[in-house]
């Protein structure tokens, strides 16, 4: 009975064991099938994913090319920089980690805001720079506290440094973090803390200075820690850029201009090389690299003396009496007057019912051309300007380099303005008035020029050649730096006799008994400078004011005072250098601008940079430190 019963159980058990075994076999087959699917059919896809997991491509930032002056003096270099970065993904709480970091190193409220803003903008695994230029002690403190600072990284990089601080800021420009809108262009720009040129030469030659990024393929683990480097492709260091500036003269000029709102340009008249280009007040380009606070920025932008503007190329001023050589040359060439014919100055000239005044109210008497230039007689130039006409004056001005930008290769250069009758009709819709020609005759009214253009003008007057200014002997061609082809300047085709008259006038300005700048002769025995003063009104003088007598300079508000200009070249017998100086609201050119010009030219001649061997470009390329960060 029991046996029978048990036999039923056994049969049932055996039957069901077959079912169970079959079920388990099916499931095991499913496992094997799944393995086949993953490891054979989808193997390539997963292999790729595994590689992507494992391999991280890192960009190696190339060292930025240096900027050197003509003798190899560094103007912009790279300095070792320890910085602290934060990876928001690896912090449990960004604010708490920043708090902890603030206990260890100084962290301004501004930096904290900036970090939080930047973290929101970027993807959570991108490191964001918290502070740069850490010193050793701060580095050590961070390392010691590392366990409390998850997501905080310290790394070592190169940072742009301008050893001359403010002196060449406007020419060099500055580097600063990449703006959002250009983030696509070059993968290098994605690197945290990467800087690109934002102004001046840094901007103009950014691609050349930047170089090409290298790459490093590293194996990382799941936490992103680098296990080893698999492959490394070195980038290409940025190329050095050599400017024509002479840093010593640049510094001297900046110091001489001091606190004035002023600009000065010194050029080699034979090569067109700009030796000095200073605009004051200036700014510290290192500050931009570090990052300006909103207040610092507002202070820079809001300053009425415009420290951010390179006045040498962006400032447009009435050239005033420095324009008179152009009028004189136009008159001579036109035959409107000869050098010896005189015009009598009685202090003013009649123009219909109005009077046009000479700066010398008592009048200069009979003026020939040389004396008119030397004493800057306005009446003489009213007369010859009206004889020549504005359009011929404009043509002469353009021949001497005014009215269009010089193309020296700096962003922000302005054209200046040389008015013509057609220009007035086109832009103002009015016909030209005779009184306006008077104004053009003394370089005022609509006429505008930049200090660089005035230096070019002085160079052209002294050589008779179409001198063009250059700041670097290199130029960009297909992203590489090449030597600028040196071609001889065009001959301007002046009658040498005419030039001689104008030059004599300029010589007399400084060296004649009645010259407007006779007090500012060079203090080098046997060496003379030629030049021309220019004092320009920024506000018209009413009849009533003239009757009451012109007020003392100190009584006029700063921004209503006259601009003081001076253009010059030297040495007189065998010219080599030309310069221009403008002091905004400086008062009288004779008192303010001419002495500055004398001091600068004296220093230029003392150092005489054009006669010293320049730094050899090839040697610089070799001495560039090639080791990437």
């Amino acid at each position: 009975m029991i046996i029978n019963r048990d036999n039923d159980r056994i049969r049932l058990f055996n039957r069901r064991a077959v079912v169970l075994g079959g079920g388990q076999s099916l499931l095991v087959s499913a496992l094997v099938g799944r393995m086949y699917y993953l490891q054979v059919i989808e193997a390539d896809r997963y292999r790729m994913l595994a590689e992507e997991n494992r391999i991280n491509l890192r960009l190696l930032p190339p060292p930025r090319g240096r900027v050197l002056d003509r003798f190899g003096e560094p103007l912009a270099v790279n300095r070792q920089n320890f910085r602290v970065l934060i990876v928001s993904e690896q912090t449990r709480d960004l604010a708490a980690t920043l708090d902890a970091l603030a206990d260890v190193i100084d962290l301004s409220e501004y930096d904290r805001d900036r970090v939080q803003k930047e973290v929101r903008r970027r993807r959570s695994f991108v490191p964001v720079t918290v502070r740069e230029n850490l010193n050793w002690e701060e580095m050590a403190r961070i390392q010691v506290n590392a366990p409390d600072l998850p997501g905080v990284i310290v790394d070592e990089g190169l940072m742009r440094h301008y050893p001359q601080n403010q002196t060449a800021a406007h020419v060099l420009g500055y580097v600063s973090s990449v703006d959002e809108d250009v983030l696509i262009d070059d993968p290098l720009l994605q690197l945290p803390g990467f800087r690109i040129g934002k102004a001046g030469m840094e901007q103009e030659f950014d691609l050349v200075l930047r170089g090409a990024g290298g790459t490093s393929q590293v194996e990382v683990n799941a936490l992103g820690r680098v296990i080893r480097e698999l492959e490394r492709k070195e980038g290409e260091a940025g190329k050095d850029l050599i400017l024509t500036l002479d840093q010593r003269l640049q510094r001297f000029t900046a110091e001489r201009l001091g606190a004035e709102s002023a600009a000065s340009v010194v050029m080699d008249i034979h090569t067109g090389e700009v030796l000095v280009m200073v605009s004051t007040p200036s700014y510290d380009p290192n500050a931009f690299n570090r990052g300006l606070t909103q207040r610092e920025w507002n202070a820079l932008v809001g300053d009425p003396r415009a420290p951010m503007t390179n006045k040498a190329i962006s400032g447009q001023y009435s050239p005033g009496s420095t324009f008179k050589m152009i009028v004189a040359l136009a008159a001579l060439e036109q035959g409107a007057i000869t050098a010896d014919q005189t015009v009598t100055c009685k202090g003013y000239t009649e123009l219909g019912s109005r009077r046009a005044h000479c700066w010398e109210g008592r009048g200069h008497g009979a003026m020939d051309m040389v004396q008119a230039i030397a004493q800057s007689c306005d009446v003489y130039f009213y007369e010859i300007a009206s004889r020549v006409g504005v359009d011929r004056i404009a043509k002469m001005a353009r021949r001497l380099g005014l009215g269009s930008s010089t193309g020296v290769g700096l962003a922000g250069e302005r054209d200046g303005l040389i008015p013509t009758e057609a220009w007035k009709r086109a832009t103002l819709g009015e016909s030209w008035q005779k009184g306006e020609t008077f104004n053009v005759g003394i370089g005022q009214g609509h006429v505008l020029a930049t200090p660089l253009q005035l230096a070019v003008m002085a160079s052209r007057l002294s050589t008779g050649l179409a001198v063009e200014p250059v700041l670097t002997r290199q130029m960009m061609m297909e992203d590489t730096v090449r030597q600028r082809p040196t071609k001889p300047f065009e001959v301007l085709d002046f009658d040498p006799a005419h030039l001689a008259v104008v030059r004599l006038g300029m010589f007399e300005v400084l060296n004649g008994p009645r010259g407007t700048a006779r007090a500012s002769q060079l203090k080098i025995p046997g060496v003379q400078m030629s030049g021309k003063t220019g004092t320009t009104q920024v506000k018209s003088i009413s009849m009533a004011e003239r009757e009451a007598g012109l007020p003392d300079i100190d009584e006029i508000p700063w921004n209503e005072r006259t601009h003081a200009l001076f253009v010059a070249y030297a040495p007189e017998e065998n010219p080599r250098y030309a310069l221009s100086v403008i002091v905004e609201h400086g008062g009288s050119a004779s008192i303010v601008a001419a002495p500055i010009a004398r001091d600068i030219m004296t220093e230029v001649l003392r150092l005489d940079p054009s006669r010293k061997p320049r730094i050899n470009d090839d040697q610089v390329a070799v001495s560039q430190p090639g080791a990437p960060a």
Partner: protein
Amino acid sequence: MTDTGFLAARLRRGDMTLAEKLWQMSWSLVFWLCAIATIGFFMLYSAANASLDPWTTRQAMRFGLGLVMLLTIAMIDIRLVMRYAYPFYAIVLALLVFVEVRGVVGGGAQRWIDLGLINLQPSELIKVALVLALARYFHSLSLEDTGRPMFLIVPLLMVFVPVVLILRQPDLGTSLMVVMGAGVLFFMAGVRLWKFITLIVATLAAIPITWPLLAEYQQNRILTFINPERDPLGAGYHILQSKIALGSGGLFGKGFLQGTQSHLNFLPEQQTDFIFTMLAEEMGLVGGVSLIGLYVIVLIYGFAIALRCRHQFGRLVAIGVTTTFFLYVFINVAMVMGLIPVVGVPLPLISYGGTALLTIMLCMGLLMSVYVHRDVQIGVRGGYDDG
């Protein structure tokens, strides 16, 4: 194995000497178990980045002890095992309650009892205890009684109580495994199929009610199972990385110690639950299928021993422990390949861990005991044949 002469009678009576029992053991099964464990040692060596520390040495020692335990259990008279099936079940259930109470008191979800060398997890032991208890119960029940619903109340309670306790831990994977293991025993004991179908339908109907009762991480696991790429850096990360590791292994693997996913820590827990992934990454499809083949051999031994056994208790114990073994393998491998949700089930004999190894060796010891005592005659209540 044919019965020979006088030994056949003693086999039936079960009064063999220890030496005879040793002789009767299936040493080839022991060999296959050792083979699998050896593969495990190599994998643990690789998981520790080519080091015997911290896992391989300890695991080998445990396996050695486990082997001794296996042989010892194999020699215990199967009738003794049957006699103590209920007390054993009661003790394990008490441990389970103890862990539960301590968890409530201590405030943490600690599932184990620290015994020094191993951390004892009662939820693992209950799998074996339940197999024994159910086997004993169904051994005593005639086929006719098995068909009566009244007689199913007690065994259902025996399953239900520990499952609820384990669910409260909360450990969804283990409870499901216990339910499935018990279900197979019910099935093999002869419970009608329509009763299973009724139960399954009832369970499915209960899902909308039970869903809110699940812990959030359990809900997440199930949701992530449906779509593992749902959250590639969160819950789905592990399974995605595991699939990448497996898939990138290809046909022949990246080579021993060469698994990039495992060694660069993209794999979670590569020494325990995800060790199969590492093996498949380093040894490829060939290595993975070979290991599965070894497991299948063990399963075949289990089935053969069950079918060969002359008493219902032995048959049910053999099929029960074999099924438990199968569930370990299937759930673990299916999990790391993304076929089922991530549940904490180790790979038998390979994964590092004390309780799992103990449970497996216990299972294998019982299987071996069934084999050694295959011809023993057992009465309805566990004595000698009383019919």
